[in-house]
């Protein structure tokens, strides 16, 4: 048995899974302390099932805690940045493009040193050990022990970053070091930004992962704890402590994967309709389609692997103004829907009221809506359908109709014959799709590298990329025979010779619970 937990800002959801069956689910308030929220949710789950804890093989946790910490700038550490690039990149140092106040708060010092690679793997300059040691001594003197290390073209070769990390670790006491190569793709600034953000979160990551572990211990659960990553695969709690940024997009990812799993639809569109917003994404082969664009977090450009999401201001609590034109959202009653909506005796007309007046749901007291003009209600209802249809259409890759899976509490807003949808599915347990998504135990390995197709041939290059990705998936804990290719992308590099092509490959397999226990 496994437990999936999703820690949101408002609620903590938990789902007990036995193989592919959802045994029991709960929703309980998150509260101030993440550990308490988890303890309450899992405790309630145990009470409901009467399950004995020894049967739990693993706990998987999805959380937006780290994202929120960074965006709210609460409890961030000071960071030193060591960049291997000289003689290149003198003109644009780390923190370029950051909001000034944020950079001032976290920038403990930047150390440009010689090194880095060209796209073809040749060294820009050899690594200079004494130069790095001198930088490390300066960090130690200044008491900087949160350190981000970046190198030019690190995704192609991470050797210099690793060597530099070893030198720094020997000199700086209790150093928490983040390597850019562990985090990102081509695009030095964005990858380095991700490493800096990660280093900034070191203290928070330690506190949160420890609190989660402690919560499980107190419940008597000895099973290993895993965290959901941005791409829907798992990492160990130790990895989450070292690489908290890898959880930044786990919320939408878990809802997409949970929706695909609960509905049994591997390829389709998922609309997660909450109280304030609707997030629409795509699952392909059961996995979220990733966005190709840079993602800005808290004002900082990153190149995290984030699901491609279209988010619109339509939710169950969205304020509605009747008339011509109809106005819906983005303001919302949010979690006060049960007090503010007219259906429940409030004075605010919401999208949920329109759904009830249009006969889409029988919750609340529909008599309270009797005074609403019928034609204007119809117009508002049509506008809600149109907003959803437009968002669904924007996320599609082709004009063909596709199945649409609805999850989240606001699914009642929508008609079952949306334009662009071949069919509409609201699966069981749709309200806790995120927690179910967290419990889908899969681990992956990824490669992002430039190959010279002319030298080794396309077939050989793709084979090498896949082999490397497979090895990384197995190293991460996947059962070798279950590993399969879920994503392969080729981007030819214009202007470069030798048929230079950037290949991204991702392999995913089932978590081998025996290996991790």
């Amino acid at each position, binding site marked *: 048995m496994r437990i999936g937990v999703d820690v949101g800002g408002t609620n903590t959801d938990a789902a007990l899974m036995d193989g592919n069956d959802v045994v029991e689910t709960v929703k309980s308030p998150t509260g101030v302390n993440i550990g308490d929220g988890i303890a309450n949710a899992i405790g309630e789950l145990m009470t409901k099932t009467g399950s004995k804890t020894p049967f739990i093989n693993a706990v998987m946790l999805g959380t937006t805690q780290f994202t929120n910490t960074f965006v709210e700038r609460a409890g961030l550490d000071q960071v030193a940045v060591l960049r291997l690039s000289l*003689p290149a990149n003198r003109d644009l140092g780390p923190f370029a493009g950051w909001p000034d106040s944020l950079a001032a708060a976290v920038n403990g010092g930047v150390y440009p040193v010689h090194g880095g690679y*060209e796209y073809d793997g040749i060294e820009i300059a050899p690594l200079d050990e004494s130069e790095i040691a001198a930088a490390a001594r300066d960090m130690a003197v200044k008491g900087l022990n949160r350190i981000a290390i970046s190198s030019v073209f690190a995704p192609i070769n991470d050797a210099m970053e690793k060597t530099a990390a070893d030198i720094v670790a020997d000199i700086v006491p209790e150093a928490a070091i983040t390597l850019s190569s562990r985090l990102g793709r081509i695009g030095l600034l964005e990858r380095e930004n991700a490493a800096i953000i990660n280093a900034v979160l070191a203290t928070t990551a330690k506190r949160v992962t420890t609190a989660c572990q402690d919560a499980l211990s107190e419940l008597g659960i000895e099973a290993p704890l895993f965290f959901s990553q941005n791409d829907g695969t798992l990492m160990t709690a130790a990895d989450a402590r070292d690489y908290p940024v890898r959880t930044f997009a786990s919320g939408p990812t878990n809802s997409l994967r949970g929706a695909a799993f609960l509905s049994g639809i591997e390829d389709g569109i998922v609309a997660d309709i909450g109280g304030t917003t609707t997030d629409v994404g795509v699952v392909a082969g059961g996995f979220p389609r990733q966005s190709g664009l840079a993602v800005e977090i808290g004002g900082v450009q990153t190149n995290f692997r984030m699901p491609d999401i279209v988010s619109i201001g339509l939710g169950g609590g969205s304020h509605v103004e009747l008339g011509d034109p109809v106005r819906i959202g983005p303001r919302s009653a949010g979690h006060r829907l049960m007090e503010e909506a007219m259906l429940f005796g409030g004075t605010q007309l919401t999208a949920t009221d329109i759904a009830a007046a249009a006969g889409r749901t029988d919750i609340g007291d529909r008599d309270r809506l009797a005074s609403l003009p019928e034609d204007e209600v119809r117009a508002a209802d049509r506008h809600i359908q149109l907003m959803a249809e437009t968002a669904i259409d924007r996320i599609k890759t082709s004009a063909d109709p596709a199945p649409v899976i609805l999850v989240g509490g606001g699914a009642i807003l929508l008609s079952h014959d949306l334009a662009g949808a071949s069919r509409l599915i609201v699966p069981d347990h749709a309200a806790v799709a995120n927690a179910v998504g967290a419990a889908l135990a899969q681990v992956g390995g990824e490669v992002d590298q430039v190959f010279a197709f002319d030298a080794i041939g396309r077939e050989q290059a793709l084979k090498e990329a896949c082999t490397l990705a497979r090895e990384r998936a197995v190293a991460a804990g996947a059962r070798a025979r279950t590993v399969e290719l879920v994503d392969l992308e080729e981007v030819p590099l214009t*202007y470069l010779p030798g048929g230079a092509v950037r290949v991204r490959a991702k392999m995913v397999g089932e978590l081998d619970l025996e290996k991790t226990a």
Partner: protein
Amino acid sequence: MNAPHNHGLGRYWELSADDVRAFALGASFMGCGGGGDPYIGRLLLESELAKGGTIRLVDVEDVPDDWLAAGAGAAGAPTVLLERFPNIGAAETALRKLETHLGRKLDAVLAGESGGINATIPLILALRTGLPLIDCDGMGRAFPELQMVTFNIYGYSASPLIFVDDHGDSVIIESSDNRKIERLGRQVIIGMHGGTQGTLYPLSGAAVKHAAVRGTLTLALEIGKLIQKARHADDPAERIVAGLNTDVASDRHAARLCAGKIVDVDRKTSGGFSRGYAVIECATASDGPVHVQFQNEHLLALGPEGPLAMVPDLIVMLDSETGVPITAETMRYGQRIALVGLSVPAMMRTPEALAVFGPRAFGLDHDYQPLERLSAGSSPAAIS
């Protein structure tokens, strides 16, 4: 931008942080979908401005005939420039080497292109060296090859082309054939690992007056400001087109070619270019579908009745909600866009100019027709 000070020759171009953002937006507009994303260029410019210094911007009209100016910019693969940024020190070294090579000092720096990342580099060099910057470029947009500039079309040599890399290593290419310089230059860029800095087209003041496309740097800034102002309008693209026609580029013709949704993108890479087409389903069914062909930059917008705009006129794709230009690499199915055209000055439409960067120069089976004729609702000639 503050009121220009007149200090003899040229005016001091004081760019605020907002202006820099606007300039990068405008450069992205003039990139016509290509030219490399100016984001890195914007950051380089911001960090150079933070060190102080001002840009002395000289109108083409005020340039003394005996001045010596030269173009400068980055050359390479956009992907490489995302890891190894344009090196301003190397670009400066290239200018100094040119001075040594020619045996005289430069009086000003020139932009080769006003679209994409290379629009920003001459500004940064002007800040760093104190050399005046001339308000012009060689194409009024972005183009992929170094002979596709008005300097070449009107008889001036790109020679010597001097490349300098991060290590200060350099290559000087001299030839009387600009196309050969382009070919040899590609080889050097490859040898310098796909990204380097260069200077080329050393021109006299008289040559600049004769051959440059005028006012394009200030135009990029004004277009950027227009895009910023239009961002919150109900229909940003419409606001941008209106602003171009009435105010920012009133000597040119701007038109909204169509508005709708991208329903197909077909990309492939051949000959070192990203080529392909996008199909736009227009909001008003009677207008569509519109095919946009690109080779790094957008080259042709083709409606059901025939062409709506073609190279060298600017064809720019804007996000319909924000009015922000979309690069060809990031076009995707489902994006709501508006397609906008902007005419180029007469000097870019002469037979000798069209021979170098007209539709047929890009392998398109169309004779050039000006944007204002195509978008005036006259029935375009049938296309075989």
